[in-house]
């Protein structure tokens, strides 16, 4: 307690001008390259543009949703340890408006993406015509707008209170955030489940799985944690919050990473095993071609690379406290999460086999640049830790029990 106090006094809680400009320029450059390539791709190969764009916009959105989930859970549990990293999470959460704007191009490509938008196919298909009441373009677009508006409502509320608390240190904001999060986490879980069914599951409109939303939700929480660890580690390497975010905090972040990776595998297996056991044609179609041809090694990569390797390494206490190991595992899991989303999206669109395309990379660059830029601008505008939170000092001195 007392003997550890004020060891972070050396840290500045603002980004320096030089760091801010340097990173901003790098992100702008990445974004510019990505967007130029995307625009070229849009005219060269309209179909493939939409396929790659959906993949990358879904991938990017999972981080923003994961951030909102993380912030809500921290409020809800009244966690002290995470207060020092809450502002960074909130800035990631506040990329939701951008996620919304960047999701809109998908709406003009529905015809290239979703089989259920083809009226002739739907008319001759008894299953799809029964689903047409839900899976139709106006309702689909309305739902997507609704999901983002709901998420942005919670994000803006929590953000506003958190920043306001920086100035007046009013404890009532903590209480308000907690109360809103209790309701919000339920709404977020339900709406994101529906969103993932709309955006990804309906790529194979005959197929259905009630586990699908949870599966992608686990991916959100996992990938966000990995990104948060990487951001903190980059900060540390450049002397930003190097004392404030200690090994003790990384240890807890490592636990999150481990827990949600295990939870992801739990959901993935639960979904797979029930389908395997039921052995019903309309359910097994999802996995059949994913265990054939060039998709088969991708499926195996997910089982081993996404679950077993990180599980075996991160289960150890030392690995969660070893910043190098933790950083490598975080980066690895971000790659694996991309493979996972690729497997979900492209696995439905290209059932004959994996077809890599330069537009996949272009879309990724555009998303990294845009989301990174918005995150970075937001972070620089105020203090990078919630200095007004009454638990802040305790969070700095947090130790594992």
């Amino acid at each position, binding site marked *: *307690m*007392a*003997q*550890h106090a004020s060891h972070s006094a050396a840290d500045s809680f603002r980004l320096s001008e030089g760091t801010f400009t340097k990173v901003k320029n790098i992100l702008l450059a990445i974004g510019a390259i990505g967007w130029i390539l995307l625009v070229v791709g849009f005219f060269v190969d309209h179909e493939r543009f939409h396929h790659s764009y959906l993949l990358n916009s879904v991938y990017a959105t999972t981080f923003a949703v994961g951030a909102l989930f993380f912030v809500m859970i921290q409020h809800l549990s009244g966690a002290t340890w995470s207060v020092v990293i809450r502002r960074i999470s909130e800035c990631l959460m506040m990329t939701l408006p951008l996620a919304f704007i960047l999701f809109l191009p998908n709406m003009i490509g529905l015809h290239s993406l979703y089989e259920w938008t083809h009226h002739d196919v739907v008319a001759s298909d008894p299953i799809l015509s029964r689903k047409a009441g839900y899976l139709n373009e106006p309702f689909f677009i309305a739902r997507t707008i609704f999901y983002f508006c709901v998420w942005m409502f919670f994000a803006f509320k929590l953000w506003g209170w958190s920043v306001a608390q920086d100035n007046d240190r009013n404890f009532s904001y903590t209480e308000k955030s907690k109360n809103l999060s209790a309701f919000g986490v339920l709404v977020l879980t339900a709406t994101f489940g529906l969103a993932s069914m709309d955006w990804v599951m309906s790529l194979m409109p005959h197929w259905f799985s009630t586990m699908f939303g949870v599966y992608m939700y686990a991916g959100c929480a996992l990938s966000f944690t990995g990104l948060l660890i990487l951001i903190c580690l980059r900060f540390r390497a450049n002397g930003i919050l190097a004392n404030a975010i200690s090994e003790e905090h990384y240890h807890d972040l490592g636990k999150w990473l481990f827990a949600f990776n295990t939870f992801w595998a739990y959901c993935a*297996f639960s979904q*797979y*095993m029930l389908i*395997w*056991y039921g*052995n019903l044609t309309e359910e097994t179609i999802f996995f059949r071609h994913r265990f054939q041809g060039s998709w088969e090694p991708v499926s195996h990569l997910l089982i081993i690379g996404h679950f077993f390797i990180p599980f075996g390494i991160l289960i150890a*206490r030392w690995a969660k406290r070893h910043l190098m190991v933790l950083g490598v595992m975080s980066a690895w899991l971000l790659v694996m999460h991309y493979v996972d989303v690729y497997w979900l999206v492209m696995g439905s669109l290209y059932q004959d086999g994996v077809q890599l395309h330069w537009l996949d990379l272009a879309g990724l660059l555009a998303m990294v640049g845009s989301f990174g830029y918005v995150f970075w601008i937001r972070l620089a505008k105020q203090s990078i830790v919630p200095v007004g939170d009454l638990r802040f000092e305790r969070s700095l*001195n947090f*130790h594992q*029990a």
Partner: protein
Amino acid sequence: MATAHTEDRAMVPADAQGKPFAVATTFYSTTDLVDAIRAVRKKGYRKLDAHTPFPVHGIDEAMGEKRSKLGYVIAACGIAGILVAQGLQYWTAAVDYPLIIGGKPFYAVEFSIPITFELMVLLASFAAVFGMLAFNGLPRFNHPVFNYSHYARATDDGFVLVVERDGNHFEPTAIVELLNELGGDNTEIVHEDA
């Protein structure tokens, strides 16, 4: 000093006590306690225990507490659970009494996982609970440290440091002197029950 605890243990004659178990003392701040622990360890005493009303940061490190071996026991039992579950399912369903059920294979990894998972968790949690009890020497009905007359303060406002007997060589009076020098209050030689 030796009779201080007899008030609440009236049934036991005052002189009925066992051999010295430890020397106990009370501090009134965490810093004093942690400093004292360091000083006592420097003198070569290794078998220490600290009783505090709330968790004190840095105390494990000062006491030189090693990481518990419990995790390895849990891991071993978890792996044993995996092996037992796999062996049980394979042997009963595919070797000893094969039955065709629902057109499924006699044995398949897919359906064996839930039972494997459950048995792994079951044996690992048994190891965690009972291993923790065993490592702590629990359950037991009493502990000699309760014979320290001011022990109750460890649940209130005192930080009790106990230097236990380590082997047969034990010079309680020297320890009493040392603890008093370090600022300990109500320093006592604590005896085992008769």
